[in-house]
């Protein structure tokens, strides 16, 4: 399966920077998942297959997505990651992401082995869900817990998405996040679902750490994209919906209606994430030597 943007890049049909406006613009979603969710009231509860996800991408007009498996977030990262390999159809539009755990309990191999397996499987992104929220994976995002894993991810160039499962008025664990970013300046970190009440701490964190990025639809701030881009540039935001919990169409509408330049919209829509993901050749080379 060719999961990487490479010679025939489905994320960049025009090649290079691509057009900045018009029908050639591409969207690459940094965070969706397939599977059968446990579900809740006030959400759409259904089995989402890879084929169903592709249909939604087509319906909304999204070119490609980074995908993880529901079972990896709700049940077991290891088992869910294995299922993802079975269920993704080898379509270049669906790029695999793995949920990751620290190795100390034996649920996961040591970090160097994890990263080697990720590269071998063409995995383009790691995800950590370290909150104590019951829906998350309950470990501390501290160096003495996740430092070795982050060291390996940093060396590999594989970006990591952090999802703290923040409920409405909550905030990330800023102090440990700051320490992680400080210890791993080469690690590309995407903060998912940071929500709308956290700018007073998020902004100084972004000022201090160039390796911190923010998922677009998770940044639920009035005139927020405009404010963010004016302060930090468009390069620090990546398009992501949170589908199927959140609406993929809403994520698109959010970016489309932002009062920023067409070039900046294109960067956020796909360009920034495309630049963060490891290239196909890197993965193949590393996998060959692993």
């Amino acid at each position, binding site marked *: 399966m060719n999961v990487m943007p490479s010679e025939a890049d489905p994320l960049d049909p025009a090649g290079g920077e691509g057009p900045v406006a018009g029908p050639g613009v591409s969207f690459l979603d940094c965070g969706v998942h397939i599977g059968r969710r446990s579900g809740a009231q*006030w959400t759409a509860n259904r089995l989402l297959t890879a084929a169903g996800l592709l249909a939604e991408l087509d319906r909304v007009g999204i070119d490609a997505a980074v995908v993880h498996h529901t079972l990896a977030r709700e049940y077991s990262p290891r088992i869910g990651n294995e299922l993802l390999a079975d269920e993704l159809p080898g379509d270049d539009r669906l790029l695999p992401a793995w949920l990751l755990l620290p190795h100390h309990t034996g649920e996961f191999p040591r970090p160097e082995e994890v990263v080697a397996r990720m590269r071998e499987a063409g995995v383009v992104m790691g995800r950590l869900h370290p909150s104590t929220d019951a829906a998350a994976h309950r470990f501390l995002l501290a160096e003495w817990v996740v430092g070795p894993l982050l060291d390996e991810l940093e060396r590999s160039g594989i970006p990591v998405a952090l999802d703290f499962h923040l409920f409405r008025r909550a905030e990330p664990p800023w102090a440990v996040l700051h320490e992680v970013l400080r210890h791993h300046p080469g690690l590309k970190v995407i903060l998912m679902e940071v929500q*709308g009440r956290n700018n007073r701490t998020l902004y100084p964190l972004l000022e201090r750490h160039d390796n911190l990025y923010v998922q677009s639809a998770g940044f639920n701030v009035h005139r927020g994209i405009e404010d963010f881009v004016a302060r930090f540039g468009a390069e620090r935001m990546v398009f992501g919906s949170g589908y199927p919990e959140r609406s993929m169409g*809403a994520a698109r509408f959010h970016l489309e209606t932002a009062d920023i330049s067409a070039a900046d919209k294109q960067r956020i829509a796909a360009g920034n994430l495309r630049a963060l993901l490891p290239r196909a050749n890197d993965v193949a080379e590393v996998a060959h030597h692993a």
Partner: protein
Amino acid sequence: MHDAHPARHRPARIVDAHVHLGHFRNFHIPQNDVDGVVAAMDAMGIDVAVVSAHAAISSDVVYGNDLVLEAMARRPDRIVGYCVVNPNYPDSVTGELERCFEHPGFRGVKVHPELHGDHPLDSRAYRPMWEFAAERGLPVLSHSYFGGDSLDVFGQLAERYPTAQVILGHAGQDFPMDDVVALVENHDNVWLDLCGALSNDGAVDALTGALGSTRILFGSDLPFVNGALQLGTLLYSRLTAEQVADIAYRNAERLFRVARR
């Protein structure tokens, strides 16, 4: 960007039934004045917003209602108002309502029991507000998440004041959906505004499937949150164009008397 994607609904008009204005102490809101609000409305294609001020629901109620008066004076083509009352000042409730409704731009009453000290919606202090609304047939929008007043309380108030129009802000999204649907089905004067519920993909589809579209209102809660993330969920829903039109503007036009002339 793709300007005419076929999956996106494009209703003829959009009326936002749940909008705020101004600063909020708890977090940073960029461009939160009336110009920032209207700029966001322009970007999304929202024609009219029914607005209450953050200051009125969380600080000085008179100062906040004055901000809405100023906003309506600045953009009378785009902004109509909710008058907020604070039950912690029971002696001032009637006077503040009378002051507000001397201005024709005010079209409803907004209450926020949670931010006003968890004051029960059926308490004595709110009684003059309910009587005022019932006498004039006004909509009353109440915050309805994180617990607070039960659905039974909303139902009892709807029965006690049948000419008032009771709007559950956030559509009662922390209650079982079946119970919310039953409340609306059993009371002709109960409405749901979708802000917050639209954060979940599929909620508006499920709610409309159970209830129909005639008593559901689009609300964004902007600038408290990003309006596009709410509106986009409605516009990319799998509802019919007629259902989206009801929710996006037809129901609100009747309720708030903001029909296009």
